């Protein structure tokens, strides 16, 4: 039940990352995927009576906070330079 929930949550995240054009929405979708993983970790920790899973979930939350900080900073700089946060239009890094 819990695993099904987290799988659906993860799939929604993946969809968001791949389909959204807005960079902020992409970051939020990544947040969904991370939290889907967190739910999984806590669920297994509870099922296996092992506290390591919960500890790992706390680490992921901390790293996610840092990631969002850096990601939003990049988005702000991107907007200042290009007047857009649409990921489709940021395609200079190619052959």
């Amino acid at each position, binding site marked *: 039940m819990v695993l099904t929930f987290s799988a659906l949550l993860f799939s929604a995240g*993946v969809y968001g*990352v791949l*389909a959204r054009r807005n960079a902020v929405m*992409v970051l939020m979708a990544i947040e969904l995927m991370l939290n889907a993983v967190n739910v999984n970790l806590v669920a297994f920790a509870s099922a296996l009576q092992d506290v390591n899973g919960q500890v790992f979930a706390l680490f992921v939350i901390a790293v996610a906070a840092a990631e969002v900080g850096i990601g939003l900073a990049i988005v702000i700089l991107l907007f200042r330079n290009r007047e857009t946060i649409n*990921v489709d239009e940021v395609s*200079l890094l*190619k*052959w």
Partner: protein
Amino acid sequence: MVAQVEETATAVNAFVEYAWVIPLLAFGAGAFTLFFGKRTPGRGAAYGILLIGVAFVWSLGVLWHFVHGGGEYETATTWFEIGSLDVELGILVDGITAAMLVVVTSVSLMVHIYSLGYMHDDERFTWFFVVLSLFTGAMLTVVVASGLIQLLVGWEIMGVCSYLLIGHWWEEKENSDAAIKAFITTRVGDVPFMFGIFALIAATGFETTNIHELGEAIGAEGVSSLFVSMAALLVFGGTIGKSAQFPLHVWLPDAMAGPTPVSALIHAATMVAAGVYLVARMMEVFVNADVWVLQTVGVIAAITTLGAALLAFVQDDIKRVLAYSTLSQLAYMVAGLSVGEAGVTAGIFHLFTHAFFKALLFLAAGSVIHAVHSNNMSDMGGLKKDMPITFWTFVIGSAALAGVVPLAGFWSKDELLVVTQEHTPWLFVVLLLVAVMTAFYMTRCVLLTFFGRYRGHAHAHESPATMTGPLLFLAAASIGVGFLGAPGAPFGKWVFFAHPEEIVFHADVALLGTIAAGVGIALGYLMYRDRKERDPLVGVLGPMWNVLQHRYYVDAFYMRAIIYPIRDRLSAGVDWTNRYILDGVVNGAAMLGRGFGVVINWIDRNVVDGFVNATGEGANASGGFLRSLQTGNVQWYAVLLFVGVLALTIVFVRIA
């Protein structure tokens, strides 16, 4: 190396003991001139003059020993061994050697000094002196050699040097032809000589090459006299070649193509003298051979001396007159030697005196040629006033050659006449006749050159002191050396075979000789007193004139009968070999190379280039494909990432 010293008992002075230094001095002069000559002031002529001067003084020291009644000296060391045969390297110094040493070194020294002036403007001046010294060294080697192989080595070096010197001005075909002729003709004589040496060594059981030991062994019991006779005849072949006796006399007149100092050296001191010296040195062999050997020698000498004297009558080239005169005089000496052991003193004595006055005549002729720039007497005449020193020295030389009392030629010719009169009267008659002829052609030569009206074009002038100096020295020698052989004089005491000879003097023979010279001179004077348009001899000789002009057709005969057939076939053969064998090899190699090239070309283009191009194209194509994935769209990358993860997950799950 084990030194094998066999010394004779009598005490000898240091000059004799170290006589081997003399040839080394001359060789050293050649080497010094060769290596340092061009860097030395004066282009290196000083080495030759200095060292040969020392050799001359040394030779006088050797002579001193014999003048004081010293005995012969011999020392030798083993050069190398072949089986039981001990090939030795050593010196044999006796009176004959001493006389020859003095002749060779003094004439060579004079020729060296004279060449300073004569060759002054020559572009190969230094090289000329190198070969001149080498030539002298080779002759000195022949003179002092105690072993026959050693003698042969010097003999052959001399042949090479004569080739180099006669062909010194090789830019003209005629000169290089003469050099080749001299070399090959003497070679025809050298081959029998070499086989003669081998025969002598074989006859005595392969023990020694020493001349004296061979001579003794030949005389021993059990050696076939026919074998010895054949060997002696073969050895005489060497003399026929080197001393230009009939029938190998053809090279000597042509050798006039060389510079005049060379002619003087060849005709007086070296080369031709070697042949006569050889007969004297090998007399032990000749006297042990059958009588007919020496008789053959005598006949050949008679033919040569008469034939050459006749040829001297009709020459216009002054050097050719002297060349035929040399032929005639050499045969004179050989005629004396053909008498046997009694003739050795006389023969060597004539060789001794002849060297001085013939060198003088050649050098004086060179002085004339230097002045008028022509060899022909038809371009000379009346030079008496312009070239007084040359004139007087030439006259002295001619008189000595003609045998005028009391010049050198008189005494030695008299000695030969006495010896032949005693032993072989028919040779005596021949020699007397030749004496008349000699006086005649020398008178003709002097009158045509120095008297009458000048017919040349160049402005004649006296030669420089470097040329007249040697002339004066040799003129003095031509007057003086004869007295060594005057009655009671010592020459026979130190130049002899087997036992000392007393110089005998028969008043009647001397008178006959003098009359002969007088008749010759008088005839010459009467005929050539006033220069006529036509040579008066043309009328006298009639058809003979043409025969003589063509040298009895001997040269032509050799050309037609021997040279052309061999040369034509040889060149045809060489041509064929060139065309079909050498060209075939060359062309085959070229074709092989071309074929190989074609294969390599194909491999290069298709295999090697194929690899290289395929690598490039592969990289290009894969790059092109991968490039299309790189769109720059982050979400496209993310799609690929997830598809990849999904694929890997499925794979791992399936495998697990």
